[in-house]
């Protein structure tokens, strides 16, 4: 079981990095961060005040980019069926997907956030808080992506639907994540951790149920 999990995760991660799909959210993230100062002007105080929030929204939007290659290709190519025939449950497949997607999505996003915060003039404690909040949230963002990809697999216009689904589900993350930037006590980060943990915990079951329902 553990061996199969490792094999599946390793395949997914290798494929993500080899196909270059991993860098797409990073480039998007950096473009969004670059455009923002042009849009609001180079006012240092304004950028310091709003930059963190913008970087958070960019992170949510970057979550949407890889949706179409998380679940659908494996369903189309028969990979998923071959795993099922070997007695590997939908939930385990979704769990492997969650971990592999996080490995391909989380670290590059944090790296991009580090670069982008330079463009906003963030440094010192606010920068540390921003990176910490994003680091806590990336597993949840990866989980949301896997859940939405499984729910919308096989549908026409899955991309647009995915965007609609992400908005309500990501609101708790955004509230506590962006909230932690202004919060000195650290409790917002704790709430963020709780929300993140919850989303990660339900991902294998929700995505697994969606994949199961699709076969009916």
């Amino acid at each position: 079981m553990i061996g199969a999990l490792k094999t599946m995760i390793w395949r997914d991660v290798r494929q993500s990095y080899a196909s270059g799909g991993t860098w797409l959210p990073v480039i998007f993230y950096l473009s969004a961060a670059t455009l923002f100062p042009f849009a609001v002007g180079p006012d240092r105080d304004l950028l310091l005040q709003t930059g963190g929030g913008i970087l958070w929204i960019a992170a949510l939007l970057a979550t949407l980019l890889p949706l179409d290659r998380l679940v659908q290709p494996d369903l189309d190519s028969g990979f998923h069926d071959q795993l099922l025939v070997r007695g590997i449950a939908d939930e385990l497949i979704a769990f492997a997907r969650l971990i592999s997607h996080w490995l391909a999505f989380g670290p590059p996003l944090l790296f991009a956030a580090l670069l982008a915060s330079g463009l906003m003039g963030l440094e010192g404690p606010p920068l540390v808080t921003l990176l910490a909040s994003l680091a806590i949230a990336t597993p949840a963002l990866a989980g949301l992506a896997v859940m939405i990809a499984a729910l919308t697999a096989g549908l026409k216009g899955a991309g647009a639907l995915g965007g609609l689904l992400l908005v309500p589900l990501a609101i708790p993350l955004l509230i506590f994540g962006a909230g932690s930037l202004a919060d000195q006590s650290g409790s917002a980060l704790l709430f963020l951790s709780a929300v993140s943990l919850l989303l990660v915990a339900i991902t294998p079951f929700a995505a697994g149920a969606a994949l199961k329902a699709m076969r009916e």
Partner: protein
Amino acid sequence: MREEGSDNLCAKALSCVRGDKLLFRDLNFTLEPGQAGLVTGPNGVGKSSLLRLIAGLLEPFSGTIHVPTSVAICDDRMALDENLPLQDALRFWASLDDRPEGDCTDAMAKADMSHLAEVPIRYFSTGQRQRARLARTFLTAADLWLLDEPANGLDTASVELLGQSLQAHLKYGGIILAASHITLPISFDLQLELTALEEMETPQ
């Protein structure tokens, strides 16, 4: 209901519904180890659905099916990474099934693909893709092979070679259930002819 762990493949009063259409009903058959069965019938009659049902990818509408623990299915989809060379793509399934490295080489030899081991799968022709699918199936140590049109796109020599692999699998006590429009060079112990049911009662 589908139960795993029996020695033979045994269907009792099996019915299958897809959408709101009844594909077949009251299907009864048994295949013992070392036996091969052939499913025939016109397009859309439910041959592939029967194989998917036995593989556990569809739920039977009614009836029971007993299958061996390990099953391999070979349908028209690759389930191999298009960008990887054949041997690397096969290696994924080998490591998932805990098979030694050498089994990949053997499986490729059985499908006459050894010379293409280092070619990425996206460059393969129709026949070569089919042989790659067969190599993936040969690689599993499954007792029951479910083959959906295994000879599609194969030339005469490759069909002969496929026959040899099927023969060897039966000799070691394996079971084969194949749906094919092309005559396969093995003798079948069971012929299962599915006929289209008339448009009749929609199952409640």
